[in-house]
């Protein structure tokens, strides 16, 4: 809903269109449940404002546009603790006049939040959860996804590996549930695009500290042993979302083979090194504002907040219903520095987007790869397509 000051909203309701250029204030909630995330690489330890920084920059961009259109955007940060009820947080946000929420929540908490907001007419933007089920059997009509799915990431990687003729994969999966989900997506991608998994191995997480002063000596011995006696393969593909082992694989495998997936060549929606198609400008703006590089989560939150700004400027309305219809329609096209328009899959509210393949320093390639054709959008070669979907939007 448009959250103008009380009188303005009253006037707005009475005189409708004539006052379209009246000052409009749009409140956006940012709901997050920061995990105590650590990382093997010091370079990848998430900053405290990971994600919300991207949303803040987009709100700044929206407000620059808003200056000319008499629209003002506000962001309210709500941090949940593990024990907090997401539904209560949503009710509190709604009570403060927020009807648009960007969420950085794990799947179950996200569904609780979205369902709590449904009867109050709230719309949610999932900026972080990669789970395919949120776009398939557990999809929601008030839940838009700017984060890609695991299947989109896996397909983006698989297209490149197949183009490169690295078809024989050694798949190594971590022992946590999300690692297994990523492995499922990689298996599906191999089957779709002609990759062949020559063998699978599981890397058990036996616990322990990520960083010890002399741990490297052990790792240097462990990883070659772990990857020994594999059948012939072209590339080791690792499914380690939990960040337990994949970063240790490059340069340590028994056979001299490249690594992809959770280390080496990594598929992602955004990367601090991405500079094509004007992305340099966004990276510069981010750096100026936050004095650090823009992470994948920052990128996904930026896109969510920019989508909100785009809808409000085009429709002169912040009504979630109007917003969702606009995104599903033919006139929505988001410019997000990915070389082509981003649009929304109207059957499950997933944002179509190219997948970057990052090597940690530069972007090695961007999928969809040339030659992977599609009758509607080449971006629909990534992830579950309309005919396969199990989503019924309600």
């Amino acid at each position: 809903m448009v959250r103008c000051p009380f009188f303005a909203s009253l006037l707005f309701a009475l005189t409708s269109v004539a006052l379209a250029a009246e000052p409009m204030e749009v409140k956006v909630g940012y709901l997050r449940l920061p995990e105590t995330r650590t990382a093997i690489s010091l370079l990848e330890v998430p900053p405290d404002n990971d994600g919300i920084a991207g949303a803040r920059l987009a709100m700044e961009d929206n407000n620059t546009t808003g200056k000319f259109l008499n629209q003002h955007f506000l962001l309210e940060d709500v941090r949940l603790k593990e024990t907090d009820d997401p539904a209560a947080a949503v009710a509190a946000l709604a009570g403060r006049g927020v009807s648009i929420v960007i969420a950085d929540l794990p799947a179950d908490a996200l569904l609780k939040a979205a369902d709590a907001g449904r009867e109050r007419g709230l719309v949610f933007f999932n900026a972080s959860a990669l789970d395919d089920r949120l776009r398939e059997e557990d999809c929601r009509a008030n839940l838009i996804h700017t984060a890609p799915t695991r299947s989109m990431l896996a397909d983006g990687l698989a297209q490149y590996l197949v183009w490169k003729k690295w078809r024989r994969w050694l798949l190594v999966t971590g022992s946590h549930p999300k690692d297994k989900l990523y492995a499922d997506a990689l298996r599906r991608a191999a089957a779709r695009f002609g990759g062949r998994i020559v063998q699978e191995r599981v890397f058990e997480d036996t616990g322990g500290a990520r960083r010890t002063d002399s741990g490297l000596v052990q790792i240097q011995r462990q990883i070659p042993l772990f990857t020994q006696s594999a059948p012939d393969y072209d590339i080791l593909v690792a499914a380690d979302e939990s960040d337990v082992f994949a970063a240790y694989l490059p340069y340590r495998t028994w056979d001299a083979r490249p690594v992809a997936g959770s280390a080496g060549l990594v598929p992602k929606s955004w990367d601090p090194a991405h500079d094509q198609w004007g992305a340099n400008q966004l990276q510069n703006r981010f750096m100026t504002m936050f004095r650090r590089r823009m992470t994948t989560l920052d990128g996904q939150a930026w896109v969510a907040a920019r989508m909100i700004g785009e809808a409000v400027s085009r429709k002169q309305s912040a009504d979630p219903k109007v917003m969702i219809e606009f995104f599903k329609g033919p006139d929505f096209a988001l410019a997000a520095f990915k070389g082509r328009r981003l649009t929304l899959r109207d059957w499950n509210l997933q944002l179509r987007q190219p997948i970057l393949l990052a090597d940690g320093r530069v972007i090695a390639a961007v999928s969809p790869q040339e030659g992977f054709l599609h009758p509607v959008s080449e971006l629909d070669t990534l992830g579950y397509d309309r005919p396969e979907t199990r989503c019924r939007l309600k």
Partner: protein
Amino acid sequence: MKMRVLLGFCLSLLAAGQADAFMAYVSNEKSNTVSVIDTSKWEVVRTIKVGQRPRGIEITKDEKFVLVAVGDDDTIEIIDRRSNEIVGTLPSGPDPELFVQDAAGKLLYVANENDNTVTIIDIEKRERLGDVPVGVEPEGMAMSPDGKIVIATSETTNIAHFIDTATRQIVANVLVDARPRYAEFKQDGSELWVSSEIGGTVSVIDPARREVKTKIKFEIPGLLRETIQPVGVNLTRDGKTGFVALGPANRIAVVDGATHKVTRYLLVGQRVWHMAFTPDEKYLLSTNGLTNDVSVIDVASLRVIKTIPVGELPWGVTISQR
């Protein structure tokens, strides 16, 4: 069409003895060079080393200098056309991209992508006169034929800003489709065309009412909508024909200036970006970024007659009047 052939013929008679001897200057974004093409031979006759990431390029109204925005050096370089050497710089803001001169050639209006401003520069004194705050990532710049309004398009804000040249204030904002890249007035001032790269359209704006009156859309059999990305726009002086470069669609659309319908698509090189007419409007040159070449289009017959290899990632092109 006949009229144009006739006009072109007359103009070339006038210019007899020195037929078609114009110089085209092409900025090569990746090579950090400017290729100089002699249009009587359709050959690169010289390559000038410039600063980093040259993009926007124009010749000063007195024809003495070529100005080229070198974005990564945060400046605009001045190339002397006689010596083909850089003789100075202009104080733009950070990351200048496109710019436009006033009719007298005294003032330069520069879009600075990195700080959301348009900088106004006194060309002769090489001094910065002031800045106008605009939307996020300004890029396209155009001057109204009467000199009263300068247009800046903001790529992330999706607005064409109308700036009053006398007061240096924004007097109107027109919302266009996503990522507006280039703006061009009809010579009679009746229309302003603004291309939207991601939106995939060209908005035709009525400059008097400051409203979009129609949008030009593009459909090419066999190409998906997302690959059609309009960037460069050039209109003939009589306003009867528009040419729109469609980026990764590798084509230039020929648009009827009256009906705003596409009459033909010309296949050129990959990622066609910007264009320029020869002064007689007999030829149109386009920069094809990914194939590192320039296409020459015969405007009367609407045929691509020549492809000229230049530097890497050719971006902008400008052609001398003599």
